[in-house]
């Protein structure tokens, strides 16, 4: 209830942090503030003229050490719609391959006076390391298995748009929890906002002591999905399907993929989410993923741009 009140009063909550490195470290009012800001950008993005000049004259560098389509294009579009000069660093062609370290790259970019660095890196803590070495704001667009804060924010935004609230909802996160930064960020955010969060995975894909994060742990879809409002499916990394974590994709599909049979365990109106890109026929039934009555996966992408615009704006304001 208090949360609802926070959402309604659009009072100015000051976000005074320089960076956005993870959901850990954010407060509830800060999250609410970002979500409230995002809402106005959702409306803007649906208009003919989507361009603002809030970030005019600012330089945003997207430094992606891991390949990405949707997150990179989402950040690029968000920056451009706010009027920033956006540059994407294609790391596969850069000096990193010649042995330059992350910090050297950071120092080189820093000398070009960017205002915002958006970084994705395969190592946990890479964004934290970078943020200590550069003068500008750093947004973590995914680091190793640790955090992907804008994904969790856009997921929260999507849930809020569909259900009007987060508090009190039962939300199941299913799949490779151990190797998932999306799962971690979502667990932090959703539990903080008062949802009941469950994680469902084979125990070989469950990280140690995950229950201490305030989630319920299930290794069986029937129990885990019982009465849930939202089902978040995670992407299954194909390289983990070779017998080291689970015996086969066939077995995984039978027991852990979301299909029309298993979705019946959830509430009748339960919604399906997925951070993408999807492996149809591995973690999710191909038809179910496109079921407009159930799937809000496309909406997640739409919210992504709005949430990232809000994050960029808020970080720039905190620099004033």
């Amino acid at each position, binding site marked *: 209830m208090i949360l609802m009140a926070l959402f309604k009063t659009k009072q100015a909550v000051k976000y005074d942090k320089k960076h956005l490195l993870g959901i850990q470290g954010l407060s509830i009012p800060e999250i609410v503030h970002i979500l409230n800001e995002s809402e106005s950008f959702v409306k803007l993005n649906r208009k003919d003229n989507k361009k603002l000049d809030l970030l005019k004259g600012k330089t945003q560098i997207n430094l992606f050490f891991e390949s990405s389509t949707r997150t990179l294009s989402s950040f690029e579009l968000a920056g451009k719609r706010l009027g920033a000069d956006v540059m994407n660093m294609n790391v596969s062609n850069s000096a990193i391959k010649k042995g330059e*370290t992350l*910090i050297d790259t950071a120092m080189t970019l820093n000398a070009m006076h960017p205002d915002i660095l958006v970084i994705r890196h395969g190592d946990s803590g890479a964004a934290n390391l970078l943020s200590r070495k550069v003068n500008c704001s750093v947004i973590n667009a995914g680091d190793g298995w640790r955090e992907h804060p804008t994904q969790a924010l856009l997921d929260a935004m999507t849930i809020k748009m569909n259900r009007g609230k987060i508090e009190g909802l039962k939300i199941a996160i299913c799949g490779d929890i151990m190797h998932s930064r999306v799962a971690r960020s979502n667990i932090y955010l959703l539990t903080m906002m008062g949802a009941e969060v469950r994680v469902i995975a084979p125990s070989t894909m469950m990280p140690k002591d995950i229950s201490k994060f305030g989630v319920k742990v299930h290794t069986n879809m029937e129990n885990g999905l019982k009465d849930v409002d939202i089902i978040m499916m995670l992407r299954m990394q194909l390289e983990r399907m070779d017998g080291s974590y689970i015996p086969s994709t066939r077995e995984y599909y039978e027991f852990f993929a979301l299909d029309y049979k298993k979705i019946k365990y959830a509430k009748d109106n339960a919604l399906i989410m997925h951070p993408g890109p999807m492996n149809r026929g591995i973690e999710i039934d191909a038809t179910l993923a496109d079921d407009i009555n159930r799937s809000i996966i496309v909406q997640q992408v739409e919210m992504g741009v709005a949430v990232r615009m809000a994050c960029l704006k808020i970080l720039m304001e905190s620099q004033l």
Partner: protein
Amino acid sequence: MFKNFDGESVMKSAIINARIIDTKNNIDELGGVLINEKGFIDACGKKITKDNVGDTKVYDCKNKLLIPGIVDARVFAGEPGFEYKENYRTLSQAAISGGVTSVVTMPNTNPIIDNVSTFDFIKRRARDKSLIKIYSLASLTKNIEGNEITEFGLLKLNGAVGFTDGIKCVQKNDVMDKIFNYGKNQDALIIQFPQDNELSKNGVINQSLISTKLGLKGIPEYAESLVIERDLRLLSQYHSKYHISLLSSRKSLEIIKYWKNKNLNFTSGVSINHLSLNENDIGEFKTFLKLSPPLREDQDRMELIKGVRDGVIDIIVSDHKPEDEESKRLTFDKCNAGASGVETFLSLALEQYHNGNLDLKKIVKCITENPAKIFGINAGSLDVGLPADITVLDLDKPWVVKRENLKSKSKNTAIENKKLQGKVEKTFLNGKLVFEI
């Protein structure tokens, strides 16, 4: 004036008025040490006073503690191949400022010390460049690949005090079986770094809530205890000389106790880091606290301290592993493991005395008498006739660890800004005062 065996002049001298602890000779009393003109200990104990030392150079060490020079049994020296991280000269300076006069060095150099000619090379280098006494280990297997055993006999004849793959663990049961079996012939000291490769693959931190939170691949404790269990079972077939280099988990201690109760003889060590720090100290990806084996839970740390107290663990080492900036200024996944620690070794160990966890004599025993005994080193006590390697310290002196004050070539201390109590004031090596503040 006489010349000692280094060809340097030494005067007959005496250290007096100190509290002397020599665990081997069961001494804990106020007194002094008389050093002859050759740099050897002539006499020691309460009988040595100002009045009976005659015409000698006298060091009055009132209110100070005097112990045998420390024997640090796990040190990475950097020569050959990693001279940019540490060389014998910088290591010596770091060591004597920490009261360490003898070190046992690891074979994890480039090339690996796995044959007589490389061993001979480092022996000569150490003789020419090192101030402190270097006792080198050779590897257990060729190129530390865990497949073929090295020439234990020849290497031992050349001066190798033991055999270990250092930062790697011999995985194959068959190879380990041969090592124990053949090692028995040569009476070789077999030293294992206990960690299963597969269970620890890509792991960089303890597997726990912390690894889940930081999103890092964890190393479960059983990666260690599994190897110890296997080794001890094999050892019980051969009764060779066996030492476990580093322990990090409380579960390993249970296994060790079980086999000790079966009258199996072996020894084990722990690094001072694992007695002083736990996984929480890693905070937000502090790469200087990435260690191997990883820091574990505080409960493990407390049990390891208890293990030292009860004599289940025999020695404490610094596990001095100098790493240059470039090897540490990386993400936690990519950076090298290890911390520089030889010069803060004693002071950090004394923390366990000041906080009441360990008694002083136990600490001294674990860093002097016991390592000297295990590695067969002619040091670690104040026996008459031994070279006078002596450390004098102010037990209570407070100080703060600062990277910039470290003498080691690499500054990767795991305890930057830590407030410590107790500092070395004088170090004697072969009777000569080599360090003083």
